[in-house]
């Protein structure tokens, strides 16, 4: 099935690229969504099935795959709306390239989730960089160029780092006489690995994947990318692509967790996570660009996820739950941003205001999205954040816990003051006659995404819990 999916994707994306007819393009995108869903359901029904030697539908990969399947339809629908309504100077070529890159990005993420071999994961990470850069450069102006240049350059360095990590990993395996570099095989031989090389390898692989995950030190590229890419693409970059970084780090961490280097790896992760939450706080309290604010909120959440992972215990469960819920919530905010832009024609917080007056349904989404992203009840993230705090407490990281809570309070203040300005304060100058009418239906998918996140957190289906528990078993 994976083969059919990948070949199908390749055919669809090349057809999208060459075809000039609008309706053919849209039907191809629709066809892709159908194939993606069939693929997701098939993989769910055939758990732990090894395909093409290098791929295995294990629980963690499946969770993220299903989450991506779930958000793919709304994201592609809004991409369609974006191309239709927003951008007047769209050509058939730019439209085709945009959708082809979207399709390729989603498929590469899916394949990377299921990959059971570090080199294969690495290869698909390369593909995501390639397709994401086409999305970021969609507007073809100098700021988009700057965004894409920074993204490409930092990602190129990051994949080089991952590659160096793979080389060191091979040295660690060489001493053990292991030739197979699949994650399963590495985990099986964890007691024979050379710890010095393993340490170096983890350091490089972790640093490399932070570019995708959005952690200190390489988070910067992702921020510019999400800012300059069209909002539907930004939604994908802020969810599916970040999860790709998570899965890379998680699989490597699962090896480290069985070796004597476990506590050392925890220290590395905690430092990176704390710095990330700190950086997110610094920027979110003074940021004036709404889209970048959403992007920094992602940095904060990834910091929390990593803290949960390092704390261990219930924290690992919470980290996976958190990342799945974040995958649903962040796209809702990004997709809603399109409508904000249609109303105010600006990303700056200085130009917006009184959004409740101009677009009620949209304003409610923004408000609920704000509650969800800051982890206030009834948000689903409240549950996972609470569990992460609990695990930090149990792991005796009391000072870290206090520090993080203080930083989160500041983030809520910064995030809140901007969101309430957007929703309630009258804008300084606005020509109300130019504001387009926005149909409430445009916000439907965002409501569904936010509601699903609440449902999954407060009343998780048994299958969902089992998948997370299986994924946790990789570490504990």
């Amino acid at each position, binding site marked *: 099935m994976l083969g059919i999916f990948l070949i199908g994707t390749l055919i669809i994306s090349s057809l999208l690229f060459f075809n000039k007819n609008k309706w053919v393009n849209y039907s191809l995108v629709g066809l892709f969504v159908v194939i993606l869903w069939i693929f997701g359901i098939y993989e769910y029904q055939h758990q732990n099935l090894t395909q093409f030697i290098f791929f295995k539908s294990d629980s963690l990969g499946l969770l993220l795959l299903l989450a991506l399947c779930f958000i793919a339809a709304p994201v592609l629908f809004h991409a369609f709306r974006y191309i239709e309504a927003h951008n007047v100077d769209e050509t058939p070529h730019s439209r085709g390239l945009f959708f082809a890159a979207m399709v390729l990005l989603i498929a590469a993420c899916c394949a990377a989730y299921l990959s059971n071999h570090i*080199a294969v994961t*690495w*290869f698909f990470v*390369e593909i995501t*960089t*390639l397709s994401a*850069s086409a999305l970021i*450069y969609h507007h*073809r*102006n*100098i*700021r988009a*160029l*700057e*965004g*894409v*240049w*920074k993204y*490409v*350059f930092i990602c*190129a*360095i990051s*994949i*080089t780092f991952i*590659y*160096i990590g*793979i*080389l060191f990993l*091979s*040295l660690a395996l*060489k*001493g053990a006489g292991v*030739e197979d*570099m699949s994650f399963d095989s590495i985990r099986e031989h964890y007691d024979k690995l*050379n710890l*010095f*090389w393993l340490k170096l390898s983890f350091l490089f692989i972790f640093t490399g994947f932070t570019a995708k995950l959005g952690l200190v030190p390489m988070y910067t590229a992702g921020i*510019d990318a999400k*800012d*300059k890419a069209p909002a539907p693409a930004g939604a994908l970059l802020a969810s599916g692509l970040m999860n790709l970084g998570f899965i890379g780090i998680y699989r490597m961490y699962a090896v480290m967790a069985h070796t004597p280097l476990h506590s050392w790896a925890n220290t590395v992760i905690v430092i990176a996570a704390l710095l990330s939450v700190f950086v997110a706080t610094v*920027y979110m309290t*003074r*940021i*004036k*660009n709404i889209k*970048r604010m959403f992007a920094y909120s992602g940095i904060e959440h990834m910091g929390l996820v990593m803290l949960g992972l390092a704390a261990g215990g219930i924290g690992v469960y919470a980290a996976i739950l958190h990342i799945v819920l974040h995958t649903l919530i962040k796209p809702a905010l990004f997709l809603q941003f399109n409508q904000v832009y249609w109303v105010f024609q600006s990303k700056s917080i200085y130009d917006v205001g009184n959004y409740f007056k101009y677009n009620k349904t949209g304003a409610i989404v923004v408000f609920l999205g704000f509650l969800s992203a800051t982890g206030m009840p009834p948000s689903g993230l409240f549950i996972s954040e609470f569990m992460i705090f609990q695990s930090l407490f149990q792991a005796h990281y009391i000072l870290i816990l206090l520090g993080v809570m203080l930083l989160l309070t500041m983030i809520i203040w910064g995030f809140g003051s901007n969101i309430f300005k957007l929703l309630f304060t009258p804008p300084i100058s606005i020509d109300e006659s130019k504001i387009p009418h926005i149909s409430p239906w445009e916000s439907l998918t965002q409501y569904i995404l936010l509601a699903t996140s609440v449902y999954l957190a407060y009343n998780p289906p048994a299958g969902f819990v089992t998948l997370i528990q299986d994924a946790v078993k990789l570490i504990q």
Partner: protein
Amino acid sequence: MTDILLIALAMSLLYMSIANRLYTYLRILILQGIILFGATYLTLTNLNIINLLLIMLETIVFKAFAVPWFMNYIIKRNKITREAEPYLPNFVSLIIVTMIIVSAIILSSSIKDQNLDKTFFVVALSMLFTGLYMIVSRKKIITHVIGYLVIENGVFVLSLAVGNEMPMLVNLGIMLDIFASVLILGIFFNKIGDVINDPDVNILSHLKD
């Protein structure tokens, strides 16, 4: 013989640290490509002939000719000034690169592992950090790319060290090479000339908070 080539590679880094003109950088890149070509032939003795030929072809074609030639074309087409414009004086650069090499030697002497030839490790590490240093200490975008290519060459040296047992990793390195060259140079650097005329890094510094 391999050792001599690797040491020559390390020496090219010292030369790079004091080079003033962009063309000198390109020549050093060509030299590094040719040295890597030789090192590949001498090191990867256990590989099957087709794979070895493929790898050697890649080093000579991509590293030694295509990429430097393309950069030369870009420098001419975009009328980039020939000066490298470092933030620091050359003498300081020389000292820093020397320090990098010395610390790589000290670091590697602390490793007790029979599985790795230390010369490879020292040279690879020096190239990696020199590349990073070049990126942060030079002003132009094109010198950033050159710094990145030096990092890539360093990584390639490291992959040669494990290449005999795991040829797949060397092939992966080649893929990285081609991917990055195509992405950074092929698709992209062309565009910088179209949208802006002065490829100075200062122009691309407006995205911030």
